[in-house]
């Protein structure tokens, strides 16, 4: 994979400019934290990177990057277990044991096969995080992945993310920068318009 070049990105919503001529470089395999007050465009930037939103100007290079992501909401398949959430994005029934082993780094064994609706909000969030890391991708994006997690779980989850990103570029937006001070994130911020 090459570095990801974000060049002169501009996004407006009506008369409001969210960001203008934003340029960033994400080095291949880099670990990035994105922090900015609410409304500054963190989610919008991630959606543009994933190709879910077309910017008003600028570009993201190279094309064809394989993304995996944790969205602002969990977006888990209703009625399916945590293991099935993973197998939906990669693998088949044969990979079930591997998926179980992977998830057991974040969740208790007895919660892996329950429909996700029966898990707590924090557990569902961790399933979404595990799914993003389990998927085959070049770059992992995470939009406020630690929402709803207490401090101890946040640290355990952060460690899980670092262990399992397997050299992929990772960009994570968060309001909880101070709780991640011990981790080797390079911090980016979005300027006020």
């Amino acid at each position, binding site marked *: 994979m090459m570095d990801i070049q974000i060049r002169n990105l501009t996004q407006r919503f009506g008369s409001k400019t969210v960001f203008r001529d934003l340029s960033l470089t994400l080095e291949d395999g880099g670990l990035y934290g994105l922090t900015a007050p609410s409304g500054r465009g963190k989610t919008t930037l991630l959606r543009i990177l994933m190709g879910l939103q077309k910017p008003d100007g600028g570009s993201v290079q190279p094309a064809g990057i394989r993304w*995996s*992501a944790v*969205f602002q909401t969990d*977006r888990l*398949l209703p009625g399916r277990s945590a293991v099935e959430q993973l197998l939906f*994005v990669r693998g088949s029934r044969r990979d079930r044991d591997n998926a179980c082993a992977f998830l057991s780094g974040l969740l208790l064994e007895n919660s892996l096969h329950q429909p996700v609706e029966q898990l707590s909000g924090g557990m569902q969030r961790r399933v979404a995080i595990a799914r993003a890391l389990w998927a085959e991708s070049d770059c992992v994006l995470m939009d406020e992945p630690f929402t709803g997690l207490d401090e101890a779980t946040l640290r355990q989850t952060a460690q899980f993310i670092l262990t399992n990103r397997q050299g992929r570029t990772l960009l994570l937006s968060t309001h909880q920068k101070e709780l991640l001070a011990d981790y080797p994130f390079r911090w980016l911020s979005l300027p006020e318009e």
Partner: protein
Amino acid sequence: MKPAKSTKTLRRGLLVTLFWLGIWQAASMLVAKPVLFASPLDTLKALLELIPTGDYWRSVLGSLGRISLGFLLGLLLGLLLGVASFRFRLLRTLLSPLLTLMKTVPVASFIILILVWFGSAWLAVIVALLIVLPQIYFSALSGLESTDRALLEFAKVFRVPGGRTAWGIYRPALMPYLTGSCASALGMSWKAGIAAEVIGTPLRSIGEQMYLSKVYMATAELFAWTMTVILLSTVLEKLLLRLLRSLGT
């Protein structure tokens, strides 16, 4: 100990059935003319006389085959056109007036037109198809449109293959709509199919037997054939719902 819920439901169902059988018996006693209004006992007697005959089974199988074929073709076509219209907006715009027309044109008009164009042999098949198709088409469209956009975005970002997205995201959104409309479409296809058979009187059909019952004023037999239709339609509906629910999970 309290009776189990299923026993309670069964008991309640039995009581309701007995209540309506009582009303039926009372009404037949009030009319007091078996040639106009057969009693439950007369109907049961007529049914027990019909069941061992070859004609009964040939007629049942004939109608069952024709109406089921029409229903299945309507289901398949409705589903295919619904999916295609969801995918291609132009096709949807093109089909919209035709399917709305199919939904609103009286069944009797269809029956007469089909009789004129194709004769009676395929009448029940085509009528059942025309009744089922628009119902399934519109419910398939509604189901697909109710699919969670957030989940579709997730599948797009993760490059989940189309087949897996269809099975894992579209199917669960579609099935509740399809299950509901299938049940009502099946009932409607039997009603319309039998009505078509009574008018067209194709050989080896329940409709033909009902028509003959009317001609010979054999009201108990007419009631027995009606009971047969109700029984067939109910059993098929339950089987279909069970199948669709297993596909929906």
